[in-house]
């Protein structure tokens, strides 16, 4: 009696592969089945009067309201305002975060000056600054954009700074033996080497931007998705509130996809296993 075992396998023919593929489609459909069933139950509960529309509007009502808001221009206008605020705030955060991270990542003195205050500020909940921001900047666009910028700067700074600091010193040494100038070393070694961490920071920053925007627009605003929702609250329009929530959700999802796309394009040099690695 020997201890040998035989391992066998058979190469899949095109036909059996076809079957697996349709099976896989079925599985991916199954993933959506449960949410669809929940929405159906929600609709039934509303239609039968089990769930008061004062508390929550029915899915059909939300769809109708959403369409009306699109047609009369309310939703596109408010969406545009919100996007502009989030975009400007995020743009400001990226410029500021990158600049600070470069200063503190590339020089010891810079780190001493920049890093400590930022690490202290980071622990403050940014949303607690809303009253102060309104006092300082009034109720226009400025406090809203700055609030978004404030929240989003930290993830950019922290991740990029970490990325620059964790560059393999052997690569920097190599650059110096090749006679690269300081600027060439920054451009060819530090920046591309820190890019994966920067993109991780960007993903967090985008998420934070939406969060800050929601608060900024609900506390004090005359336009924007958040304002539209607060307005609806006064008139007990749960359908409009839910449309707003849906829009926020879609925006968050889409911006995350965009950053993922950036990652897979810009980090093409990474072997497949590490691509799109979640942070």
């Amino acid at each position, binding site marked *: 009696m020997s201890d040998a075992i035989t391992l066998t396998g058979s190469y899949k023919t095109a036909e059996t592969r076809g079957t697996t593929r349709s099976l896989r489609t079925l599985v991916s459909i199954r993933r959506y089945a449960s949410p669809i069933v929940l929405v159906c139950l929600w609709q039934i509960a509303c239609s039968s009067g089990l769930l008061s529309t004062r508390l929550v509007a029915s899915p059909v009502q939300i769809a109708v309201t959403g369409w009306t808001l699109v047609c009369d221009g309310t939703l596109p206008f408010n969406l545009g305002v919100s996007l502009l605020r989030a975009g400007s705030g995020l743009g400001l955060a990226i410029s500021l975060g990158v600049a600070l991270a470069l200063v503190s990542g590339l020089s010891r003195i810079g780190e001493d000056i920049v890093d400590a205050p930022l690490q202290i500020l980071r622990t403050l909940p940014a949303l607690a600054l809303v009253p102060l921001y309104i006092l300082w900047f009034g109720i226009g666009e400025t406090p809203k954009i700055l609030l978004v910028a404030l929240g989003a700067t930290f993830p950019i700074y922290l991740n990029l700074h970490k990325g620059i600091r964790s560059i393999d010193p052997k690569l920097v040494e190599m*650059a*110096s*033996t090749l006679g*690269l100038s300081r600027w*060439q070393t920054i451009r*060819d070694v530090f920046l591309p080497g820190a890019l994966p961490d920067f993109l991780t920071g960007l993903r967090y920053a985008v998420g934070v931007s939406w969060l800050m925007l929601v608060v900024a627009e609900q506390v004090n605003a005359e336009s924007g998705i958040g304002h539209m929702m607060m307005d609806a609250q006064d008139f007990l329009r749960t359908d409009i509130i839910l449309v707003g929530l849906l829009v926020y959700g879609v925006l968050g999802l889409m911006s995350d996809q965009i950053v993922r796309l950036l990652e897979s394009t810009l980090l093409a*040099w990474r072997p497949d296993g590490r691509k799109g690695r979640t942070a």
Partner: protein
Amino acid sequence: MTHIQSDVHPGTAVIVERLTRRFNNGPPVLDELDLAIAPGEFVALLGHSGSGKSTLLRTLAGLDPVTDGAVTRPRDVSVVFQEHRLLPWKRVWKNVVLGQEDKAIRQRAEAVLEEVGLSHRSNAWPLTLSGGEAQRAALARALVREPAFLMLDEPFAALDALTRLKMQQLVADLWKKHGCAVLLVTHDVDEALLLADRAVVLERGRIRVDVPITIPRPRRHADPGFEGLRSLLLDALGVHAA
């Protein structure tokens, strides 16, 4: 004298004079070391870990400062390290011509990659290369600068035995073609005997043995002329050959 002189004439020999180096006031890692390398000479530097080989190489490469003594070396030098140290975010050919910014870089990169037998991977990402391929790329990166002095810091130590043999042959060929002075830091006595004109054994920051290797080239690993030198070098390294 406490500085590196980069002589303007290409092909000037390397001269190390009374070079002393300590770390944190400890015992000297290099102890009044004198060493001269002629233009086009291939010198193998042997020694145990901590004998000062790497410190000497780093000083010659300009990575460590000269604090006591003097070093003269050509201006155009290149280093190949034990790890390939390729930038993973640049394609192979861009790694080869890293830091060079003129119009002919692509041609130069292709030409030198051809020389090291890697032209088929010139567009590849470094992380997809095998160990031997990556080290060939590192060699190409060192050679594209036409150095008068090439430093090899245990460049084959991380490779498998068969790849190492091929790489040693490649280095021998490239050295013959380019004619630059070479300092090869290695642990491997046979590697030194196969490639070098001269073997230097370093011990506690001083030169213990400095012998010429006069066996005619091309050399083969099994050359009977190696025996005497091999036991001499192994003796100097404190390993007693049977």
